[in-house]
């Protein structure tokens, strides 16, 4: 084998699966972000294809609807020349009663190297790691984590604001049900940001306090002096009871509009993981305004997923 002559640093993720940011170290997170930042150049090329993962197969297994995460994973895999196969659960044997275990074992028997799993049940991707030889990438599980969204948010913040350490980040919305908020919180925490979580009492889990977040129910106070304002969608599909008097009241108290945004720093950015509900958590003027980086988040999503696929699958025979 050729010797290493050009001084490349042989770095690797020291894990087989990506289940959440809570278990990842700051070094690992930075490795992914640095790799993703370099991959953005590939996205800008006239020919957006490199042969790095030729012969690898990535299977997306989505037990919940999704536009951007699934499309983004598939695009990332294809740019790296991996083959993709996607199972739409509504049209698969899951409707005939096949379990997650049997579904992944079946797909593994066809030669899948990496599964991308989204599931309404927290912990489903972790359970799948017990059955498969390949890699598992969590694409969102219940109210637990959505690590790729967390990483792409970190990359977007880093690009807009520089080093994340000591930045003031305010996350507003349905924190109780949001896996995005959890991943963002862990990632920001590890990289040293000051995180404020804000939402109505019913949607603001007090446990976050233990981990060093600042909890606020008053939205105006929470935004004061923020570098980054991150908005979340109300997860109606996960609300099994009455959490809010009305959506209109929520929009009035927590919806982001231009007037409210003035309380943040003048150069603050507005983020949203999508899908956005205009007129609820975000007003039209903010959603179409110059300070939002919502579409940058989407582009960075492809780069982050390329980085993860490359770091997990790239070093294998």
């Amino acid at each position, binding site marked *: 084998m050729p010797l290493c*002559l*050009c001084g490349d640093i042989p770095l690797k993720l020291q894990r087989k699966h990506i289940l959440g940011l809570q278990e990842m170290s700051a070094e690992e997170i930075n*490795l992914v972000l640095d790799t993703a930042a370099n991959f953005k150049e590939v996205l800008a090329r006239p020919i957006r294809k490199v042969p790095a993962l030729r012969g690898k197969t990535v299977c997306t297994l989505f037990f919940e609807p999704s536009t951007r995460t699934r499309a983004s994973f598939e695009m990332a895999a294809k740019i790296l020349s991996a083959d993709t196969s996607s199972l739409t659960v509504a049209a698969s044997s899951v409707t005939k009663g096949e379990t997650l275990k049997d579904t992944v074992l079946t797909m593994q028997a066809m030669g899948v190297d990496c599964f991308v799993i989204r599931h309404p049940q927290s912990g489903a991707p972790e359970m799948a790691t017990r059955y498969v030889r390949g890699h598992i990438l969590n694409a969102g599980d219940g109210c637990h984590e959505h690590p790729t969204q967390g990483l792409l948010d970190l990359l977007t913040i880093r690009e807009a604001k520089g080093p994340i350490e000591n930045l003031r980040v305010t996350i507003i919305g349905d924190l109780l049900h949001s896996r995005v908020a959890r991943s963002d919180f862990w990632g920001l925490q590890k990289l040293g940001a000051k995180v404020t979580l804000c939402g109505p009492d019913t949607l603001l889990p007090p446990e976050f306090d233990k981990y060093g977040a600042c909890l606020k129910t008053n939205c105006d106070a929470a935004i004061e002096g923020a570098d980054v304002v991150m908005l979340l969608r109300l997860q109606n599909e996960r609300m099994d009871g009455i959490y809010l008097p009305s959506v209109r009241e929520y929009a009035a108290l927590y919806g982001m509009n231009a007037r409210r945004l003035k309380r943040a720093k003048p150069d603050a950015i507005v983020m949203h993981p999508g899908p956005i509900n205009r007129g609820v958590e975000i007003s039209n003027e903010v959603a179409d305004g110059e300070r939002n980086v919502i579409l940058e988040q989407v582009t960075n999503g492809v780069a982050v997923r390329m980085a993860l696929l490359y770091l997990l699958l790239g070093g294998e025979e």
Partner: protein
Amino acid sequence: MDEADITRALKRIAHEIVERNRGARDLVIVGVPTRGVPLAERIATQISQIENYHTPTGALDVTLYRDDYGTRQAIPQSTKINFSITGKTVVLVDDVLFTGRTVRSALNALNDLGRPAAVQLAVLIDRGHRELPIRADFVGKNVPTARNENVTVRVKETDREDIVRVEKL
């Protein structure tokens, strides 16, 4: 090789490139990271002094095109080529030519960026032991080595010194 040797070799390579291509008009110089990039810049500086013409330089990452990432994974660097290579004569620059596999991946990477009129290869050190039918057009120094030896090139831009060493592993 010490600093003076390296400077002389790069100067000669610059002259040879200009001579072979009858000037520098359609030339672009592309370095392969890490050490190839500063070497490419130095050659371009020399060429601009000889010909009084600025040759565009860039960096070409080949990590994603390698055939050996199974054994040595590296973090890809960004390719920085802010000019079209189509119709140009591309001079690829690397520090050490060994098996030829890096050059093979560089040729594939170039292919995805455009269609050069010609590709030439300049290396500071040719240490032999090719595994592919690839040869350099411009060589700073031929250094016969054993396979179990390691050739280390250090350059000021990344390593604070200019030196080439052959070491037994």
